[in-house]
């Protein structure tokens, strides 16, 4: 007889994915046979590590003493006054070592790679934040590291390219396609196919074949878990709204997942609207795409009527991706999370507002989340609370922003 599921799991939105790595109809393992055995090996190794108190303790120790967790929860008082509505709190993951939430996931995956006895690390990167975080962990543990980065991104994120090189990583510029995150991921997959024996692929977002979307979400969920406790301490209750930007969706999944069953909390994901959804030049997969298969999973994608993938556009290299993690596609279809978009220009305005009112230079990625917050907050009552994931700092973006403001550095 089948064991009945405990009621909590039955009613929970947090129990996914299925054994096949599905969130509803999304997710799965759509990779070439050459990769299938290693993908299954990662799945098994992660399942064991997840249950192993030793692994969890090791991860927690490194997050505390190396990454610098917990990150603070900050009441953005001047910004709140300026917007004239709901109280705005920032979850300050930009204060992590390496300057973004990417460190949470990289630490988890490199500990897993070591546990599996892998001796070489590869990664893809868009903004360069995941590449820097990966290169950092590789320096820490003395593992050789190759990072694939689109040629366009190499240009617009030059400081991060230099950082990776200083950290000892080899940065390979990818010229196929538009030379952005999608192309970097293709090339990283090609490297992995040729080097499965010794290589571990640290994927930087909640995409890729199962178990990656689940595993990366688990490693990032520390964001939402901490925020929940911190919000209780600060306000004695849950926030009314939680907002995060979405490239592949890892910082958003990390913030949202611990709140999925708290139905009083509105969850809002902000995609990159580029030049505007109506122009077709954007990176809003849920708003402007339809389901398909890319990079190992079934999810919403920007594609033409013949199933060819369309290049995304965003001012932010980290959001410039034509897909989105499969769990988001599911949360979109069941209506648990709302997905909206913010344009390049709205993000630039928010970038400056944050800098001037709070003294925090945000990355262009969370500036998209903030752009939506600036619209939402004034429509809410003063006793309502918005929690926003400030998932990265903007030092890497000052050249891009200067160029848009017509300033020569």
């Amino acid at each position: 007889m089948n064991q009945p599921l405990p009621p909590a799991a039955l009613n929970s939105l947090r129990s996914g994915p299925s054994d096949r790595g599905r969130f509803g109809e999304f997710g799965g393992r759509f990779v070439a046979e050459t990769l299938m055995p290693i993908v299954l090996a990662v799945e098994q190794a992660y399942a064991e590590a997840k249950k192993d108190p030793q692994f969890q303790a090791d991860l927690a120790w490194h997050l505390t003493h190396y990454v610098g967790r917990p990150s603070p929860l900050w009441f953005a008082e001047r910004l709140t006054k300026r917007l004239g509505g709901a109280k705005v709190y920032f979850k300050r993951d930009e204060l992590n070592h390496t300057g973004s939430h990417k460190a949470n996931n990289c630490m988890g995956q490199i500990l897993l790679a070591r546990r599996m006895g892998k001796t070489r690390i590869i990664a893809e990167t868009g903004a360069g934040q995941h590449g820097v975080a990966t290169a950092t962990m590789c320096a820490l543990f003395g593992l050789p590291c190759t990072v694939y980065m689109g040629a366009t991104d190499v240009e617009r994120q030059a400081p991060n390219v230099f950082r990776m090189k200083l950290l000892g990583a080899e940065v390979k510029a990818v010229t196929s396609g538009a030379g952005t995150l999608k192309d970097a991921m293709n090339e990283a997959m090609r490297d992995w196919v040729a080097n499965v024996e010794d290589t571990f692929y640290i994927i930087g977002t909640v995409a890729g074949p199962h178990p990656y979307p689940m595993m990366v979400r688990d490693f990032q969920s520390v964001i939402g878990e901490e925020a929940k406790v911190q919000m209780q301490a600060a306000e004695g209750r849950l926030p009314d709204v939680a907002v995060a930007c979405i490239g592949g969706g890892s910082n958003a999944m990390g913030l949202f997942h611990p709140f999925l069953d708290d139905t009083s909390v509105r969850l809002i994901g902000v995609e990159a609207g580029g030049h505007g959804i109506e122009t077709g030049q954007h990176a809003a997969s849920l708003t402007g795409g339809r389901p398909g298969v890319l990079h190992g999973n079934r999810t919403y994608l920007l594609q033409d009527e013949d199933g060819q993938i369309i290049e995304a556009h965003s001012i932010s290299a980290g959001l410039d991706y034509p897909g989105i993690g499969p769990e988001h596609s599911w949360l979109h279809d069941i209506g648990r999370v709302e997905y909206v978009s913010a344009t390049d220009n709205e993000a630039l305005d928010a970038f400056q507002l944050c800098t001037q009112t709070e003294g925090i230079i945000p990355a262009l990625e969370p500036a998209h989340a903030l752009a939506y917050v600036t619209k939402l907050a004034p429509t809410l009552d003063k006793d309502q609370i918005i929690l926003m994931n400030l998932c990265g700092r903007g030092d890497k973006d000052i050249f891009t922003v200067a160029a848009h403001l017509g300033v020569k550095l």
Partner: protein
Amino acid sequence: MSRIAARFAALKADGRGGLIPFLEAWDPDGATSMALLRGMPAAGADLIEIGMPFTDPMADGPIIQAAARRGLIAGVKVRFILDMVREFRKDDQATPIILMGYLNPILSYGPQKFCEDAGQAGVDGMIIVDLPTEEADLMLPHATANGIDFIRLVAPTTDDVRLPHVLNGSSGFVYYVSITGITGTRSASSADLAAAIPRIRKVTDLPIAIGFGVRTPAQAAEASKVADAAVVASALIETMAAHLDEDGKAKPGTVELVLAQVRALADGVRGR
């Protein structure tokens, strides 16, 4: 008997292995790739593989990536590839055609409709690179219902425990990816092939084709002897790519050059 089974039976009766040349649909344009397809049987192709261009061919190296891009720039659509096969079948009822591609364009077309239309057009088999056995239920029932062989890839990383699982529900032939890597990069050694093929034979009676890294007549001869057929792709596409003008159009004589190369490979598998 299916065209694929009939062809492998005939090859066996002849006492030789087969040659499976590959062409990318609409590389560099519809007319050129149609002419190439038409000319392949007379040049000695025993079966033919047609690549379906995709924007993100994750298992392919630079040579096939570029071919796919040329096809897409020329305006290829999934339905035009089926049109090519329909056109080919007007004068050739015997040479098996296998489509090789990635899942998303097929998913977008509709898995059931794709298999129905492909079956009617005269497609005999399909290989979907990013559809492993674990996800095969998406296509398998439709392929079977329309008489299309669902050909599986086996890789050096597919161990003995996994092998029967991978081959479960496969038909036509088994495609052995002879290297751990992408297309157009390395070639497997004779020793690797000599060890790998018997390992697969233990698990299946289906014919085995070797692909990835087969470039020369000598390599094709060896692969078709160790296994039952050899697939040659990147080497042929390289010839095509070397004879395009600045606008990416085929220069006069390009098709003939590629067909001459097919003929040399065919001589190889015939031991001439």
